[in-house]
């Protein structure tokens, strides 16, 4: 076993250890054991930093990969398949190393920060335990070498988020939010699970490398529609976790969790998992699947940005900005800008964590006031927070010299390149939405900065009733429960909350990633994380399905043999490949190669457009909020339908509520009714019939008339009229019955014999 593997397993298990210790013993430990959590995470970070150092800095090899696995379940000699084992394992490559370091760092910072933020909560110890399992789950996703274990940790992330979002479970809103998050994620998960099933059903393995090898070898025997479907379905997992449309609804509600948790969820762990996962499966995505992904990402980016403009809750703005940024990443993956998307994932993780922690500091300082309308002027009271928050905001908006600029620009360049290669038309919608969202991002972040930090304090403007309600509705834990805040006391937070802000802000600056502030591609990140070659060649995919199936092995072989063949078959792509050569590697797949080439070409165009957009956005924010040339309220009035549309988040919650949720509840009631009344009723009906029949028979002796009617072939009325006079329980009627039985049958027999 490679020493890095051993270390990575240690890293994986350390947070779990923290969870186990804290969940069982937190009440017996001093300070509820927060030092255990912080200490363990510190250790984990140290180890992962070492891994990072070894892999990224020392080895510096784009193709670095070590893997290890063990047999988890041995299915024996399965009929029709042969010996079959389900393996679990760990893989470390550059992406893993980076993600490990990032996750552990942010987690550590959140732990540290929480020691300040959560101090005094009655479930303080449990909180750290939850953080531990959250980190563990996320690390599991990062380290997994197969779909099955990814799915396991995927769900565990869901659980952890459930626990953390609902940490203040006494609040109904929190309880609702945690449920919503879990269920929305589950919907995504079933898609992902089906995707996994499609792949497993073909290859009888969950391992990435085996699946890709099999795919490349053309062993996928179903039609290509299935392959596309599997890609889209797997992407559904990402839609859930990374809060893409249409499952984005859970994320803003998840703000009910403690703010540091928001940082952890929305920056480093959960939402990143989705993007990370798509990156892992990137190579098996067919062009069709990629198109879907790209459109979903672009739409999400745009939609969330429009919503973020009108939100008043400081965390909600950030939440929607997260959704929007995740949209970018997904868009990036969809257009094939693999490394750019991951780059954005990492940069976003840092600056968004910074933003969330910063907002947490603000909320903390404001005594759990989250509404931006009642903030203002915090610049003076909280200089550290202000500085770091602003820096992170700039990065988010994508101003040059920040990390965000580089990564976002790379994605947009990819989108442009993609649109050109795909032949324009509707595909240009993707970069257009991307650029437009960039402008909106700059605008709403400008608005936020202004509302929070500049101007005068507007705390006193808050309506009293609202205030009271809010007080209970937000982060009010027991320790703060009775502490009504007065017109004072807004001051900078303590060091343990400040330090993480500073660290994260630092990591939002360009030089961490690339020497050239304008081109992330020149940095180590883009070098280490390179777009992998697809294993589902587009050439074969364009063939009619029937033909494709027949020729699959041949074509796949051709794809494997590589560039040489491709060059012969598709001459025009040769140039593209050459263009990409300086990127260090080539693509066998012509489409991929073309996109890479076009992306490269679009780099500067993207920079120009996006810079313009960002400037536009910021200036609009300035115009509206600083110079007050346009009154936001009046504008809102003027475009009220649009304003409400945005404020109410495009009414997705209402739509889902009216359709899926209410539909399910109604259906469940209907089915339950059906169950008790119809299904059970049928059975009881049979019983009743039997009893009725029994009654008829019991009355048989009683009302012999009727009974005779059943037993004889005589006319109902005449015999009935005669024999009705006979009464119950009489021996004579018995005798009559006897005689009728004997002679009746005889008459029947004679009749039959005669005719």
């Amino acid at each position: 076993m490679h020493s890095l593997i051993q270390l990575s397993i240690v890293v994986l298990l350390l947070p779990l250890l923290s969870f186990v210790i804290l969940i069982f013993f937190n009440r017996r430990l001093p300070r509820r054991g927060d030092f255990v959590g912080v200490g363990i995470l510190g250790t984990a970070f140290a180890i992962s930093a070492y891994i990072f150092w070894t892999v990224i800095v020392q080895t510096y090899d784009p193709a670095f990969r070590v893997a290890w696995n063990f047999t988890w379940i041995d299915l024996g000699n399965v009929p029709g398949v042969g010996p079959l084992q389900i393996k679990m394992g760990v893989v470390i490559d550059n992406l893993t190393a980076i993600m490990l370091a990032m996750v552990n760092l942010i987690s550590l910072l959140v732990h540290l920060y929480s020691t300040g933020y959560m101090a005094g909560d009655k479930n303080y110890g449990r909180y750290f335990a939850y953080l531990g399992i959250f980190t563990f789950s996320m690390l599991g996703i990062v380290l997994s070498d197969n779909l099955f274990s990814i799915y396991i940790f995927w769900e565990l992330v869901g659980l952890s988020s459930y626990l953390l979002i609902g940490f203040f479970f006494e609040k109904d809103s929190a309880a609702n939010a945690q449920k919503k998050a879990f269920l929305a994620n589950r919907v995504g998960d079933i898609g992902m699970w089906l995707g996994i099933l499609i792949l497993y059903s073909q290859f009888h393995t969950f391992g990435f490398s085996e699946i890709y090898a099999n795919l490349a070898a053309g062993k996928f025997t179903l039609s290509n529609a299935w392959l596309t479907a599997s890609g889209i379905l797997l992407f559904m997992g990402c839609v859930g976790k990374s809060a893409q449309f249409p499952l984005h609804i859970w994320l803003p509600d998840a703000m009910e969790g403690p703010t540091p948790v928001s940082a952890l969820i929305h920056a480093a762990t959960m939402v990143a998992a989705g993007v990370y996962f798509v990156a892992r499966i990137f190579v098996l995505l067919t062009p069709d699947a990629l198109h879907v992904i790209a459109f979903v990402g672009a739409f999400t980016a745009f939609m969330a940005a429009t919503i973020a403009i009108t939100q008043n809750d400081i965390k909600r703005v950030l939440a929607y900005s997260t959704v929007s940024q995740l949209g970018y990443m997904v868009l990036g993956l969809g257009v094939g800008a693999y490394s750019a998307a991951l780059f954005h994932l990492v940069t976003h993780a840092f600056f968004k964590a910074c933003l969330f922690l910063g907002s947490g500091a603000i909320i903390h300082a404001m005594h759990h006031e989250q509404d931006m309308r009642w903030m203002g002027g915090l610049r003076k009271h909280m200089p550290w927070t202000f500085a770091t928050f602003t820096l992170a905001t700039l990065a988010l908006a994508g101003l040059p010299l920040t990390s965000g600029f580089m990564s976002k620009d790379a994605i947009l360049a990819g989108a442009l390149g993609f649109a050109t290669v795909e032949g324009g038309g509707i595909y240009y919608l993707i970069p257009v939405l991307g650029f437009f969202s960039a402008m909106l991002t700059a605008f709403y972040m400008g608005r936020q900065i202004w509302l929070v930090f500049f101007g005068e304090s507007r705390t006193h403007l808050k309506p009293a009733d609202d205030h009271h309600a809010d007080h209970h509705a937000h982060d009010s834990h027991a320790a703060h429960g009775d502490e009504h805040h007065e017109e004072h006391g807004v001051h900078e937070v303590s060091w343990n909350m400040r330090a993480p802000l500073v660290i994260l802000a630092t990591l939002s600056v360009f030089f961490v990633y690339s020497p050239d502030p304008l081109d992330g591609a020149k940095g180590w990140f883009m070098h280490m994380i390179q777009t992998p070659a697809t294993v589902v060649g587009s050439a074969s995919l364009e063939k009619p399905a029937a033909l494709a199936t027949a020729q699959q092995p041949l074509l796949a072989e051709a794809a494997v043999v590589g560039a040489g063949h491709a060059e012969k078959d598709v001459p025009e792509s040769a140039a593209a490949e050459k263009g990409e050569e300086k990127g260090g590697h080539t693509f066998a797949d012509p489409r991929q190669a073309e996109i890479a080439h076009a992306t490269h070409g679009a780099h500067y165009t993207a920079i120009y457009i996006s810079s313009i957009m960002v400037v536009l956005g910021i200036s609009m924010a300035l115009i509206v909020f600083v110079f007050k040339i346009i009154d936001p309220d009046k504008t809102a009035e003027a475009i009220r339908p649009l304003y409400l549309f945005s404020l109410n988040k495009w009414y997705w919650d209402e739509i889902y509520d009216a359709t899926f949720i209410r539909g399910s509840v109604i259906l469940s009631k209907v089915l339950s009714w059906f169950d008790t009344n119809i299904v059970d009723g049928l059975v009881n009906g049979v019983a009743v019939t039997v009893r009725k029949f029994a009654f008829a028979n019991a009355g048989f002796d009683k009302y012999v008339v009727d009974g005779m009617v059943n037993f004889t072939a005589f006319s109902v009325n005449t015999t009935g009229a005669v024999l009705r006079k006979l009464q119950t329980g009489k021996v004579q009627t018995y005798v009559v019955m006897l005689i009728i039985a004997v002679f009746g049958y005889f008459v029947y027999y004679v009749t039959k014999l005669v005719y």
Partner: protein
Amino acid sequence: MEQLTTIGLNHYLTVSAFLLGFGLFAVMTRKNAIVILMGVELILNAANINFLAFSKFNGGMQGVMFALFVIVLAAAEAAIALAIVINVFKTFKTVDVSNIDSMKE
């Protein structure tokens, strides 16, 4: 003509059938327990006539023996029947079988 002048098997059988019919009629329609029992006697005697007739026309002694035994048993049965009817009369103050119906359904 022979049918009318010579008494053959059919005559016996016809009489027996009539007796059976009367017996059944009595058993089905009469209310008095005694009369019902008389109906039963008619049925038994119908059988007896059959036995004797068959015995005569088919040969063999079995029919005769049978008839003898039936007569004896009819007597025994009558004895028991009357005892029971008397007992019923003591308890119910009636021998009308249509009134004796405390157990039903």
